[in-house]
């Protein structure tokens, strides 16, 4: 009986030891799994970040090429040439904006007139020189 009890105790000890080992193995595996998971996550995030950066770069490229094209077409020299070609002049009086009075051939409709006038105002910062334009803006 005593022998049987001793045998059972020894087996129990052995069993506990095995369980501990298995648990520690599982724990180690879990730790290793978490570590690997994190490493993979880093790469996944890196790829995502890289994609985002590439998208950003593409957008910046687009912005720059638009800026380049815009500047080529609407440089100060070009605006001034246009102003001179259309006979704009500084006037002494306020609230006057004359546009191609003598040139009857050129027909500019109202909406176009606004665009031209606002370009002119932007160029010379003449906001508020024309009462009519000021009302239209409001």
């Amino acid at each position, binding site marked *: 009986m005593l022998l049987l009890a001793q045998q059972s105790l020894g087996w129990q000890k052995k069993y506990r030891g095995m369980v501990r080992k298995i648990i520690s193995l599982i724990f180690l595996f879990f730790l290793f799994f978490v570590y690997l998971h994190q490493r993979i996550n*880093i790469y996944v*995030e*890196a790829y995502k970040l*890289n994609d985002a*950066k590439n998208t950003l770069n593409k957008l910046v490229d*687009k912005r720059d090429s638009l800026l380049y094209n815009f500047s080529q077409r609407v440089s100060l020299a070009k605006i*001034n040439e246009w102003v001179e070609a259309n006979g704009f002049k*500084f006037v002494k009086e306020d609230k006057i904006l004359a546009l191609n009075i003598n040139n009857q051939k050129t027909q500019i409709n109202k909406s176009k007139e606004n665009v031209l006038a606002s370009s002119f105002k932007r160029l010379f910062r003449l906001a508020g020189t024309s009462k009519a334009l000021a009302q239209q803006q409001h």
Partner: protein
Amino acid sequence: MKDKGSNLRIYLVYFVFSLLFFSLSLRITYLQTVKRKDFLALAKSQHSKVITVKGERGRIFDRNNRVLATNIVVYSVYMDPKFVRNKKDTAEKLAKELGLRAKDILDKLSASKRFVWIKRKISPKEKERLAQLNLKGVYFLREYKRFYPQGALASHILGGVDIDNRGIEGVELFYDKFLRGKEGLVSVLKDSASRSLYTYPQVLYANRGLDLNLTIDIQLQYWVESCLKETIDKYSAHAGSVIVINPFTGEVLALANFPTYDPNHIGEASAREIRNRAIGDIFEPGSVFKIVTLVGSLDRKIFSLGDTIYCENGRFKIPGSILHDWKPYGELTYKEVFKKSSNIGVAKIASRLGATVLYSYIRRMGFGQKTGIDLPGEAKGILKDPRAWSNTSSYIIPIGQEIGVTVLQLAQAMCVVVNGGYLVKPHVCKEFRGSYGLRKEFRLNKRRVVPSGVSSMAKRILIEVVNDGTGKLAKIEGIVVGGKTGTAQKYDVEKGRYSPYAYRASFAGFIENDGKSFVICVSIDEPYRSHFGGVVAAPLFRKIAEKIVEYEEANKRIAAVR
């Protein structure tokens, strides 16, 4: 016997394997301990690397924050010849897309280097087309390219940069260390295809260079440049320069030269076009230089305004030469001498001053030394020490011969007359702006050289020169205009005498309107049809002055609205 033999074989196998394991263990221990650092570094280098990130160059604006220089992203193509399979085919495809010679690319590919540039700074469209070809061993590098949206406008002030974005001319060169961005470092992971993946935070942040605000008004600059070009075309002149400056602060509002160039393509511009003539070209000023004698004689009080000087009927013998007036004069009052620009009268006034005193006033007015403008390539002019002056020198230097000046020096001297007797340092930098609201403004640098009473008297005489003298064509109704014309014969170095055909027409003047003053200095080199300063340069001065007056009035109205 048989057992013994088999036992021996077993022991032998056991021994061999033990030895093998032992040596392997030794090797592993060696690699893991002694060589640990090397292999760690190797592994790290294969998985990650530190790359440099270029800091963007600071932008340049005019005084009203209009962009004059900015950066755009472009691509540069490079190759690793090791990964190129079909070199000939690759070279041909690249040559076709980039407009290069296939042979040049092949030569580059034959080099033993692992990195060769194919073409720097191509457009995004070109890059897209090239990327679609999917060529092995061909890579792209994102770079910044300096871009000047206003083209050739203000090119001599802005200067330009080289392919590596380093300043080579103008403010780009002068303020290069402020404009240049600081390089940063970033640690990146590499995947199996050696592609860089941005993961780790930056080791060292790349800093953008400081933004620079110039004193230039680009609208004014446009008018100055177009008026100058008009005059150059009208008189088929060789070259020309104009400077518009605020006489009280020394702020250069416009500086134009002809011929000019586009800083976007500075590599294609010739040295003749790039030269900033307004600050670097030395010339004999002629009658414009008489303002020095005017200021000096007024300060020394050797003449009163009503005193008369006999002008020898246009022919005056001086040691070693004969002085002529462009028109024979008899008795002229002190004022009339300057109004009519009599060489003989001025020479007589200067001789009363004496060589040493005259020299001191020449220096005081800023001649013979650099003005200190913040632009590279400034010349200090030519001014001999009075001990080296000949007997003729003290008669001809006052009328602007035997002396070399720049247009900027003339403008600076005119500022002395206008601002109450201060020699101001001309400058083009208004302020620097950096991150976190950092601002650094230019400090006003001026020193008194003549009393304010003297400068205001000189100013009145110069106003009369325009109202009723040689500078009549510079007159604008309702505006205070003063100035001095100058027509100088050019010295022919080859023939060793003054050329009868080559002249330089100049006008240095000022306008005063509504409490604001502007000094405008104009110089036209070798004009044809006419060569007189009063005919060629004075009308150009008037055109620019009219534009300034109109512009200032418009600005005033805008300010009132705001």
